[in-house]
């Protein structure tokens, strides 16, 4: 019973860590640049969850004030993550533009092939 409670209390953290670690793995292990950017955004979204989940209060409602409710979840992480999402998509767009340019210059978006071409020159 105690173990079950422990698992429920930390299940969200473990999933967040799994997402984070798979993002890290994709960025390190895959040579394809679009795949790398997907991994980067996985990592980013896991951080969103990491911020949002401590702000949740069981039995609370979304932080929109009303006479009918007294317990609200923490609004501050929401504000931070709202900013982070928008900045995140800006960086992804920049990265994708770089990928398009790299593809034009090298004819490929695989890291290894780019390095090989660089050596030849």
């Amino acid at each position: 019973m105690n173990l079950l409670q422990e698992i429920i209390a930390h299940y969200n953290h473990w999933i967040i860590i799994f997402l984070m670690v798979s993002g890290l793995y994709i960025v390190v292990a895959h040579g394809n640049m679009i795949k790398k950017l997907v991994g980067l955004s996985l990592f980013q979204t896991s951080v969103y969850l990491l911020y949002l989940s401590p702000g949740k209060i069981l039995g609370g409602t979304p932080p929109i004030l009303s006479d009918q409710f007294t317990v609200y979840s923490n609004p501050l992480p929401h504000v931070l993550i709202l900013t982070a999402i928008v900045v995140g998509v800006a960086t992804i767009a920049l990265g994708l533009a770089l990928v398009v340019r790299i593809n034009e210059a090298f004819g490929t978006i695989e890291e290894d092939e780019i390095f090989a071409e660089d050596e030849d020159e």
Partner: protein
Amino acid sequence: MVLLTLLAAVTLGIVRLRNLFAVVILGGIYSFLMASVMIVLDAVDVAMTEASVGAGVSTVLMLATLYLTKSQESEPTHTPLLPLFVAVATGAVLVIGTFALPPFGAADTPANTHVAPYYLENSIRDTLVPNVVTSVLASYRGFDTLGEVTVIFTAGIAVLMLLKGRRQVKPGPKRPRIRR
């Protein structure tokens, strides 16, 4: 909890698949699942943003890039053992760290008792906006939001500069608008 498990399953798919089109679509599904989790976590504003920006805009941007490049990833040339080891080791250390964190949903944690109650109590009086997220974003921390807009503006200019000098692809689509 079910949603979180689904999220993990989709992530596994993203890691395993080599067809980039499928990866991008799974990324869209992932973002929608993430938005659902956010609603469960009471972050309704964030969920709306994630569903529109994460699942909408970034999926479209990725698809546009795939159109201009290749959509198949080549076979890996290195063994993935070292990255796998690094990832698993990092994950193990982080999991050990979670046992010191407060349990999910607790109300008396430092994060929830420090400055958040101030905003909840004074938002109506100070800004007349019932949605506390809006009042913090646009009023209390409006200057930060200005900084955010600056970042987006800079990124937009950079994308335009990068794509402006490129050669015209023959039949291709009109220049993808990657500015947002």
